[in-house]
């Protein structure tokens, strides 16, 4: 018996010793890490891993390495990609016609663009630039990409971003298989002409956000399904080349010296992007120096990280859909009831408690859209709606009106309503807070139901809910978000529809004059808010953080991309 106990003690001691040998900051341990991590550390800096396990460059090595905590891509197949997280990577590994940097359009493969008077035809002129392997990039490669995205057999789920081109929608719907009918043509090696379906002054911005890249027909045809499936199956043309990719985990980029502007932009030689989903882990890695910067700082840690955090408005808006077609359709279709629900929410206090980077939304068009004179759309075109702190008295009045119209004598008689959203900690808190405010302020009983994302979105389209809360992209122009609510738009699930609204949006799309366009947009916005079929909740925000030695770590609201164009690592 005693023997066994003694053995146990001995074992425990050995383990402690082992633990001692393997301390993370210990020199020996550090070297092991560097050696084992050669896949990511690699070559010249691998051996010098004295600090923190060889991840960071040795002191004084400026712009050597940069480790970023961010969301990773779902797919790197540019035709099948749907997620903006993929776009973040494409930004680094492909050259585009034009790209965004800090919400400004930057010329990339194109060196200039001209348009006709009524903004229906744009001509891009390409500069001399090549792929990473030296092969020249020509205009027909861009045309081929548009071709791939619009041709139904390629299975692109994002084809509608090019529906602004003449004939594109008909071609994509299979009404014709004549590619010549689509308004996209490479007239020579260096010239690319787009003809639009309707006048669009924001076309270049939209193209920059869409990030049109060159694809080679040969490569696409030979790789088929495997296009972009691994680091070998891509033809790099951007500022970086992807050398390692672990799905849902990490990416490593090496600078591409053949990028046309390699000398002036993208100074960092090696970039690691690491995907971490746990909030505590993410912050701890950043604080421990295992990462130099991070996107999407967890809301609860904003205060904790203090100065290192910067905030920017996001590109999304959270909305609640009221289902006029469901079990309680008559109630949900009542505008007064919708307004009562909307007015009863104290958006500002709620969002301050849950996620301070967000901004209460009491309209649909976000503050990021500006007019030509620099003032924001929001300031120039106010709407008549509830304030950010809600208005309980007004809400009660609306509720009373709604009850009267529908023949109820009190709120107690209302059926129990189902508030559906997808599983996410923040969505849950928001749902709980909103439901509690409805209960406290109006005496309405609503139950919260959360489902995994696939199931929840299935319910959104099948109309299996009374209220549905989801965040959507606001897009590139002030019309983008509202356009998607019109009949046939991406978020049209049949729950709310207004012919007048559709007409206004359509009119606005064709209006060239800014004053007229924004005026129509504003009318549509007001109409939508008053009918209360869709209630805005908040505009999403971005918080990102970097250590002091990182310079020019920026974030973009429009379009995606890790914009490391001028990023410096000074250590």
């Amino acid at each position, binding site marked *: 018996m005693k023997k066994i106990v003694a053995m146990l003690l001995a074992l425990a001691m050995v383990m402690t010793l082992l633990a001692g040998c393997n301390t993370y900051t210990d020199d020996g341990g550090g070297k092991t890490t560097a050696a084992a991590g050669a896949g990511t550390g690699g070559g010249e800096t691998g051996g010098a891993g004295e600090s923190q396990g060889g991840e960071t460059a040795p002191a004084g090595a400026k712009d050597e390495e940069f480790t970023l905590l961010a969301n990773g891509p779902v797919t790197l197949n540019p035709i099948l990609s749907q997620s903006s997280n993929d776009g973040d990577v494409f930004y680094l590994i492909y050259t585009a016609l034009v790209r965004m940097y800090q919400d400004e359009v930057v010329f990339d493969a194109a060196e200039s663009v001209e348009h006709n008077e009524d903004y229906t035809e744009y001509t891009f002129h390409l500069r001399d630039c090549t792929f990473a392997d030296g092969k020249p990039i020509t205009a027909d490669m861009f045309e081929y990409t548009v071709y791939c995205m619009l041709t139904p057999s390629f299975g692109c789920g994002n084809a509608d971003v090019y529906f602004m081109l003449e004939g594109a929608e008909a071609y994509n719907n299979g009404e014709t298989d004549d590619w010549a009918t689509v308004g996209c043509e490479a007239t020579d090696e260096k010239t690319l002409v787009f003809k639009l379906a309707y006048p669009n002054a924001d076309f270049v911005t939209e193209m920059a956000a869409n990030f049109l890249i060159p694809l080679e027909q040969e490569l696409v045809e030979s790789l088929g399904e495997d296009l972009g499936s691994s680091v070998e199956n891509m033809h790099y043309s951007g500022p970086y080349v992807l050398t390692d990719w672990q799905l849902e985990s990490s990416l490593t980029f090496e600078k591409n010296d053949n990028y046309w502007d390699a000398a002036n932009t993208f100074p960092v030689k090696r970039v690691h992007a690491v995907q971490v989903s746990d909030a*505590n882990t993410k912050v701890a890695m950043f604080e421990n120096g295992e990462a130099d910067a991070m996107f999407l700082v967890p809301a609860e840690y904003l205060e*904790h990280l203090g100065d290192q955090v910067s905030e920017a408005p996001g590109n999304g808006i959270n909305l609640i859909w009221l289902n006029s077609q469901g079990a309680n359709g008559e109630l949900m279709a009542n505008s007064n009831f919708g307004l009562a629900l909307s007015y009863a929410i104290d958006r500002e*206090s709620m969002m301050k*408690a*849950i996620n301070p980077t967000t901004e209460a939304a009491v309209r649909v068009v976000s503050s990021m859209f500006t007019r030509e004179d620099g003032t924001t759309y929001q300031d120039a075109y106010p709407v008549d709606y509830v304030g950010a702190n809600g208005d309980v008295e007004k809400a009660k009045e609306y509720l009373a009106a709604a009850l009267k119209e529908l023949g109820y004598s009190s709120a107690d008689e209302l059926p129990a309503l189902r508030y559906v959203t997808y*599983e996410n900690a923040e969505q849950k808190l928001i749902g*709980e807070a909103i439901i*509690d405010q409805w209960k406290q302020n109006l005496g309405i009983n609503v139950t919260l139901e959360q*489902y995994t994302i696939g199931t929840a979105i299935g319910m959104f389209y099948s109309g299996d809910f009374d209220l549905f809360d989801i965040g959507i992209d606001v897009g590139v122009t002030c019309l983008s978000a509202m356009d998607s609510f019109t009949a046939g738009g991406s978020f049209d699930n049949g729950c709310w529809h207004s012919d007048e609204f559709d007409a206004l949006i359509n009119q606005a799309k064709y209006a060239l004059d800014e004053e007229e366009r924004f005026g129509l947009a504003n009318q549509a916005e007001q109409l939508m808010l008053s009918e209360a079929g869709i209630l805005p909740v908040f505009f999403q925000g971005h918080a990102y953080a970097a250590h002091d030695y990182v310079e020019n770590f920026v974030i973009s609201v429009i379009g995606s991309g890790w914009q490391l164009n001028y990023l410096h690592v000074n250590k």
Partner: protein
Amino acid sequence: MSVAEERMSGTEKGAGKGMSPVSAEDFVPVPEGERDTDVIVRPSVSYWRDALRRITHDKVAMVSLGFIAVIVLLAVFAPVFGRYNYETNNLMATNVKPCGEHWFGTDTLGRDLWARVWVGARVSLVVGLFGAIVPQVIGIVVGGIAGYFGGWVDMVIMRIIDVGVCIPELIYITLIMLYLGSGPLPLVLAMAMVGWMGSARMIRGRIMQFKSREFVLASKTLGGSPFHLIFRSIFPNILGQQVVSLTAAIPGAIFMEAYLSFIGLGIQSPLTSWGQLSQVGASNYRLHPYQLFIPGILISLTILALYLFGNSLRDALDPHLRD
């Protein structure tokens, strides 16, 4: 014989004394009037009675039981008599540390954690208990049938189980939650659907072990019905082990609920549970440690009490552990 075994045999003075050296003084002639001492004078003690007597004389068991009783009482009454409602937000008093006003502090939406913890206790205890018992009961019945009858019955049941355990449990759970909602009851049902297979397998193994033992054969020879054999002859022998796995299954069920809420299939708000509270607490434990430690410690203590009680219960129930 070890000290432990002596302790276990409790009030019956140990057979272990027989090992001490024997001397002549130990032997005294039996006095005249006490010749008939070997006649049984007291009523014979039944199995269950004996078990009850043993458990009530076990201090550890009684302290554990007391603790569990306190938790249950608080779970039942604290939310009723508390000053705050567990679902009412107060956006002006978010993340308040424990104080006189809010004994356990408040959460991100300013909800009183004292109220939430005890409402959560209700859910966790119900889900933990039934989520552990229901699958076990199903498992005992199915496993018992498979193990006792053998042959093609066993074959079919075991194949169903073989296939069933390989299908990801999330698929069953998602399906149940989708059609029955996500209250405590569907949760227990989902756990039963996932859990019965494991315990059926285990029971079957145990039954096969005992099936060929002498006392079972004897009972069979005497014409015992299958029911009698399974539940009277074999079952008491595996009950002890079952009690242990039951006490192990309770934390399992409580954690399962926490894990499910982590991936969006747990108890739906505004209801909450210890698992969910500690899950939320763990997501920002560095900033508001009390939000993790209060539910966390309660879970651990409750499970400790259940475990110790289960141990004593096992000792009291298992015929192998007494002689």
